[in-house]
């Protein structure tokens, strides 16, 4: 049962905090470093990776695996060619069809319990048997079944948060009433930080974040207009290797490697 690889779950209290941006670019950063990575879309209510990565047709989706309709091999899509000179990138996507979204939001507790079992089984099938180095899971915000299932299966939970007051408050509660209860290693990424150019200001923000959340800060990402301008059409770290955002993602990936 011992695996070398890690399951990293990206979660947040509110929507629009940058979970998907973080997940995709973190996975891509690991691949650029020669790792074998699987990126999974667990946001069944609002799937986004399929559109973002332009894979809108598939015979099997992650929904089918959780439904027990197929094994995980059938779901994996090889996108290794998207990253130049790297390791391997596979994705497991959530079904975009409205019917599938409706179906996933009407599942009962017994189904969710089985889905948790199938998610936990990925440690053996993907990390141990197929030799993946990282599974990066993008999730729905807040206390959704699929997200909590992912959190339970995680080795590390990255909580994406912003300075928005309701987000700060909700994130604080989740830290103590969700991640702590499951005894999960949790790290904060503060996104969309304004005026973060001076190192003094960055240090002040870091101290402030640690005081508020009483949890380690994994990264601080300034608000980059270039990221917004890309409109989710590119894998940012791949297309803009010299951009400060790419450098920050590199630092975050190195931190995770050493955890």
């Amino acid at each position, binding site marked *: 049962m011992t695996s070398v690889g890690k399951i990293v779950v990206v979660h947040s209290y509110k929507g629009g905090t940058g979970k998907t941006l973080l997940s995709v670019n973190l996975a891509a950063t690991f691949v650029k470093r020669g790792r074998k990575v699987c990126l999974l879309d667990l946001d069944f209510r609002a799937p986004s990776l399929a559109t973002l990565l332009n894979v809108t047709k598939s015979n099997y989706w992650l929904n089918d695996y959780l439904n027990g309709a197929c094994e995980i091999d059938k779901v994996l899509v090889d996108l290794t060619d998207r990253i130049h000179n790297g390791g391997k990138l596979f994705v497991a996507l959530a079904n975009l069809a409205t019917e599938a979204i409706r179906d996933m939001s009407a599942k009962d507790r017994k189904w969710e319990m089985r889905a948790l079992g199938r998610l936990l*089984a990925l440690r053996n099938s993907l990390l141990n048997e197929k030799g993946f180095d990282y599974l990066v899971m993008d999730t729905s915000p807040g206390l959704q079944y699929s997200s909590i299932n992912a959190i*339970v299966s995680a080795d590390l939970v990255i909580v994406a948060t912003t300075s928005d007051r309701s987000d700060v408050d909700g994130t604080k509660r989740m830290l103590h009433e969700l991640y702590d209860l499951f005894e999960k290693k949790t790290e904060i990424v503060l996104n969309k930080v304004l005026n973060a150019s001076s190192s003094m200001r960055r240090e002040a923000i870091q101290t402030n974040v640690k005081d508020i959340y009483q949890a380690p800060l994994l990264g601080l990402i300034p608000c980059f207009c270039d990221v917004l301008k890309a409109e989710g059409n590119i894998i940012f770290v791949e297309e803009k290797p010299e951009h400060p955002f790419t450098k920050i993602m590199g630092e975050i990936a190195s931190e995770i490697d050493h955890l």
Partner: protein
Amino acid sequence: MAVKAQEALGKRPLHVLEKIRENLEKLNEKMEVMIELQKHDRKDVSLPITDAPLDVMTLLSMPDHLRKTAMALCRLGRATADEIAQQTTRARAVESAYLNQLVIMGHLKKERKGRKAYFCVEKEYKG
């Protein structure tokens, strides 16, 4: 013939001792269940509740000591009290009591294979 009969006789006390031990273990388990029932003032309940799925929301609402046991079993899928104790680094007897309590609450199933008692979330569960 005489030798064989002697061998059979020699094995008999061992067999009897084995049976006694098995029965004592069963008795012990029944007592653990009764103690748990008493603790929760549920003398009226003679049969375990069925169909109380061990989903994440249920895990969240559990007391910490039971959640730890339940999560270890979720990870393993099917395990003995010994195997759970290895994961949680708590004593086997403690885990045995908690597992039996989770059975009473209807979250787990218990099955015997020879002398060992296995606990599982349910048959189809992968873990």
